[in-house]
């Protein structure tokens, strides 16, 4: 009975499928050079319709940008014998290094909470930590601290109202990526919503990697650490000698 009801609901939602999203990114990829100090990414698109715009709840757009995931250990300090030391920790296997959400209106008004759980759109759900075996009684304050610290550093952000939707068809969202980017594949997601429910979604990848000398240095340090270490020492000794020689020359 419940299944039948769900099916009917789904069928009822089908006509809205007539609206689909087509989108593009202002960049194909981001190259990190020595002078890299962050990057602007413009995500733009349009709503394609087979029929005139349906009546009912207004159309809304949510755009997300997510960086590669990594493991994080969240430590908490406690006072022991008068000094503050790390006593408790929670390990998180994978959480995005960057996550930004932009939308046409406050998420509470345009996104159904159940739909949010399904699609993992809002910041707390998207970065929802996959915790390992718990070493503390309550991991919630640790997860909150993760969100708080990353938000303060600009790594997690929510910009409600930052997406502009023109004539119910064209939209754009601007993201400012910080300078301390983690390399890897960034993912963008674009959601079209009506009445709190996602009616169409579009995904695209945005690779971010080091280029030029930055890439050479990084690769050398990983693939040939002995040579890299010797090179670092050579630079240090040469620079030390050169400075000494230069000063001797300047002040005989």
């Amino acid at each position, binding site marked *: 009975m419940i299944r039948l009801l769900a099916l009917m609901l789904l069928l009822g939602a089908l006509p809205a499928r007539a609206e689909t999203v087509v989108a593009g990114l202002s960049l194909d990829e981001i190259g990190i050079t020595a002078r890299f100090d962050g990057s602007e990414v413009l995500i733009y698109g349009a709503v394609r319709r087979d029929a005139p715009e349906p009546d009912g709840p207004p159309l809304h757009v949510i755009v997300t940008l997510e960086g590669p995931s990594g*493991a*994080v250990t969240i430590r908490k300090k406690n006072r022991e014998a008068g000094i503050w030391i790390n006593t408790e920790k929670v390990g998180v296997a994978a959480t995005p290094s960057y996550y930004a959400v932009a939308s046409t209106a406050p998420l509470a008004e345009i996104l159904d909470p159940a739909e949010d759980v399904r699609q993992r759109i809002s910041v707390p759900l998207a970065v929802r930590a996959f915790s390992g075996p718990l070493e503390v009684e309550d991991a919630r304050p640790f997860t909150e601290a993760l969100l708080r610290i990353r938000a303060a550093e600009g790594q997690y952000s929510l910009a409600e109202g930052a997406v502009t939707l023109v004539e119910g068809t064209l939209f754009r969202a601007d993201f400012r990526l910080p300078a301390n980017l*983690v390399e890897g594949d960034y993912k963008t997601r674009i959601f079209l919503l009506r009445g709190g429910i996602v009616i169409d979604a579009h995904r695209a990848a945005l690779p971010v990697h080091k280029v030029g000398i930055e890439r050479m240095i990084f690769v050398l*340090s990983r693939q040939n650490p*002995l040579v890299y270490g010797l090179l*670092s020492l050579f630079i240090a000794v040469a620079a*030390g000698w050169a400075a000494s020689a230069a*000063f001797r020359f300047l002040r005989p």
Partner: protein
Amino acid sequence: MLIYLPIAEVAVNALLLLGLGGVVGVLSGLFGVGGGFLITPLLFFIGIPPGVAVATGSNQVVASSVSGVLAHLKRKSVDIPMGMVLLVGGVAGAGAGIFAFNWLQALGQIDLVVQLSYVLFLGFIGLLMAQEGVRAWRRARRPGGPRAKRHQHHWVHNLPLKMKFRASGLYISVIPPVAVGFIVGVLAAIMGVGGGFIMVPAMIYLLGMPTKVVIGTSLFQVIFVSAFTTMAHAITNQSVDVVLALLLILGGVVGAQIGTRLSGRLKAEQLRILLAALVLAVAAKLALDLLLTPAELYSLHTTVLR
């Protein structure tokens, strides 16, 4: 002028790094310390990941020490035989220290041990130097007062394996310098520094070396100990950032030259009081960090997964 650091993976102001290197370089030339105990905490402060800061700091120490030692060699204020003897102990100690470091890291308390050893050693050495410096300064201002004997004969001088250290004017057993080198090496590896700030007072107070050759000799042995540490970090955890190091070095080597020139003009007592003040200031700052309630109780430690 922002520059992106390939290993640290952050963008920082290049001029800030040059200035930081320069200030630490001046101190390094002035006091014969590699500056690791200052550069590492300062790099934490500007947002460089701790692992990269420790490893890159040791690379910068190599450069400023080379620059400083060359200036000292010209003034013939390096006791090379003594430096070699200290170095034997130092490299063995650094090896043992890296072993201890990994063990403490496995226990999860390395941060605490590092901070506590900074506070204890810097505090103790700073107080010792301040007291000695003030006493010497008073003596210098009241000539004719009783002078302390420089060479006191005690059990240390009865040990075997005696060697002549001409530049220091000492004829002592090699056992105390090797032991000093070893202990400093252990501490240096655990604390992620060259160890000059421990070595300098140990040479003056434990070995009885004249202040004139202490700085050059300390710099001489710090070069090798920090070169060893740099290689160990580059090979085991790939955390040496050569671009970061280069910027710090450019500022640092120039600073070290200025510092060495300045040290020739200042009196030994003044120099000691200044270094004591600096060491005490760093110790006080670190002690406050341990004692005051932090603004954020939680901290994030990212493990690089690639």
